[in-house]
């Protein structure tokens, strides 16, 4: 008795179908790429927007949370580009190569595209249009995902970055991909990026999603990044989600990581009405060491969901996952983390910890750690905690003359500091801690 009950399509689903039908001829890419889009859309259409009865989306009922679809963003005009210039400040004076994507479109005139040995940068729109080989090889193929949000992104992908870092190259400055919404009018953006880091290369990637318009911002983001990390490469990826207070943000990282690589991932989620941050990672080669960490700072009625699937497909890899959330007001923080250890992935060493700090009686933390282990010689563990600040610790600080708000801030900084410490770049660690301190001050 499992007769499928088709639900009535929601307004957003109907709008997605109409938008796709109207846009598909104009969206970049022909032949196999057009087929990829079409297949993705059919896959999405068959399941619709994910809802609470879909286990992976249990805590983030996108069908209920996404009431409508905002029109696809128009290419940015001069005033949008002018507003966009303020974006990227969240990382302070950390020296980077800035690549700007304004309302979903690559803005080369706002980006640093000066040549550098071993680094190739292109726009996804152009790469799709001309049937670029790298795009043909990897887009939609890095991690075969059944996820509805990823399928939607594939169906409607417009622009984004296509970056290739040659074998053995060491890229001096971090690459900062800035995806900024400028808020001229309600809009939706479907950016897709592909970054291929070849064998033995060293790179640091920063991805920030920001808002540079007035008010809280009435827009929707569905962003996806496919990342290929070659054998022996050393890669850091930091994603900052600092959307406007009215934004709906869904983003997906799909990463395949080669052998003996070092991979360090950090997510910092601070802005947006509804945020779903998906990380799908797979170890494809042996003896890789990875750290996957994140911090979520939520207040008001913010909802942020971090969903991680980590697939140990090769033996001898070590992964450490640490996710911290600080929840104030009526916010809701969700962490779902699944570690899969394939039968041949012996000697896997994986440890996952998620901790939520609740600053109010009305905040909610949902933690769902899962282990699926098919190998017999592994070390895996997970832990989850949720609680308020320790009253005895607070008293100790207050008894030394530290006012209550400052004492709380100090303990909260210490709480998230443990995760932030995992970022290798000292300057970036500092600016993210500063952003956290600013968040705490705004709270007081």
């Amino acid at each position: 008795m499992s007769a499928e009950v088709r639900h009535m399509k929601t307004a957003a689903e109907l709008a997605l179908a109409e938008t796709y039908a109207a846009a598909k001829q104009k969206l970049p890419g022909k032949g196999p790429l057009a087929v990829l889009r079409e297949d993705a859309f059919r896959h999405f259409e068959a399941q619709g927007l994910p809802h609470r009865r879909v286990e992976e989306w249990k805590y983030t009922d996108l069908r209920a949370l996404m009431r409508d679809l905002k029109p696809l963003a128009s290419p940015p005009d001069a005033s949008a580009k002018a507003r966009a210039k303020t974006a990227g400040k969240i990382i302070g004076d950390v020296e980077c190569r800035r690549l700007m994507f304004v309302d979903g479109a690559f803005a080369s005139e706002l980006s640093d595209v000066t040549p550098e040995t071993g680094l190739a940068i292109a726009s996804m729109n152009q790469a799709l249009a001309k049937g670029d080989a790298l795009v043909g090889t990897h887009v939609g193929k890095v991690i075969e995902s059944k996820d509805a949000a990823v399928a939607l992104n594939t169906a409607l992908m417009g622009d984004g970055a296509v970056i290739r870092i040659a074998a053995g190259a060491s890229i001096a400055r971090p690459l900062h991909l800035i995806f900024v919404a400028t808020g001229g009018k309600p809009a939706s953006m479907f950016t897709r990026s592909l970054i291929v880091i070849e064998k033995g290369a060293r790179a640091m990637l920063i991805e920030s999603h920001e808002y540079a318009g007035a008010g809280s911002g009435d827009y929707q983001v569905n962003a996806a990044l496919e990342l290929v990390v070659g054998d022996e490469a050393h890669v850091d990826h930091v994603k900052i989600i600092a959307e406007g207070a009215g934004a709906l943000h869904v983003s997906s990282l799909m990463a395949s990581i080669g052998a003996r690589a070092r991979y360090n991932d950090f997510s910092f989620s601070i802005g947006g009405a509804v945020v779903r941050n998906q990380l799908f990672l797979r170890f494809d080669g042996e003896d890789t060491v990875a750290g996957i960490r994140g911090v979520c700072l939520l207040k008001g009625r913010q909802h942020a969901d971090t969903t991680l699937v980590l697939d140990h497909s090769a033996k001898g890899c070590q992964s450490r996952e640490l996710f911290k959330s600080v929840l104030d007001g009526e916010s809701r923080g969700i962490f779902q983390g699944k570690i899969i250890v394939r039968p041949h992935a012996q000697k896997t060493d994986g440890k996952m910890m998620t901790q939520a700090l609740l600053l109010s009686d009305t905040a909610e933390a949902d933690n769902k750690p899962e282990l699926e282990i098919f190998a017999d010689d592994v070390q895996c563990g997970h832990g989850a905690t949720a609680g308020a600040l320790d009253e005895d610790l607070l008293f100790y600080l207050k008894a030394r003359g530290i006012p209550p708000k400052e004492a709380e801030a100090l303990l909260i900084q210490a709480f998230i500091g443990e995760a932030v410490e995992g970022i290798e770049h000292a300057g970036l660690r500092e600016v993210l801690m500063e952003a956290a301190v600013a968040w705490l001050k705004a709270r007081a």
Partner: protein
Amino acid sequence: MALLEVKNLHVEIGGKKILNGLDLTVEKGTVHAIMGPNGSGKSTLAYVLAGKAGYEVTEGQILFDGEDVLAMAPDERAAKGIFLAFQYPMEIPGVATMTFLRTALNAQRKRRGEAEFSTPDFMKRVRDTAGHLGIEQDMLRRAVNVGFSGGEKKRNEILQMAMLEPRLAVLDETDSGLDIDALKIVADGVNRLRSPERSMIVITHYQRLLDYIVPDVVHVLSKGRVVKTGGKELALELEAKGYAEFADEAA
């Protein structure tokens, strides 16, 4: 006027009476020892002075420099100059000892309307003070009390006291868990801080600590009240006879 006046203090925790009309007067520049058996209310007195939540004062008064202490928040009391050296110092993962000290010192100074210390001035002070207490630079960089031995934790309390320069220091069983060498270091640290401008209340179960920190006045606490007050010789008497006599007296 005495620096501290505790008058007829009655305190309950969760409906259970712990202090029953405690009186205590501490003059400026004096060191008072409070001794007593387990459960006599020694630590409760320490926590009530510092302002810990959960202690309900049902009657009585605490005046510090003539001001009503019970009306002040813990951080306010600290800024006025009341310092509690904890029996069990807390571990604060992620907060470096140096950061903690500077935050506390500058918060107190700010509240008192004094200028905050510059980084170099602060560093110099903390290095000098830590040196006297045999505290290594490495310990200052580590998170507060995390991975510290019992002796290190107590030395860290005395370091905080030295940096914050309180007018009244309450040392709650500072000797507990210390071997004789660690005890001497801590007592030396405390003695260095004795001054005509600073009063101390040394709470201890054992007379041993008072060989090193010699008090001006000794009080015996039993069942939530001071049942005997005397000079330093009272401590020796207690050591010889035990607390049995006072337990009966208070009953």
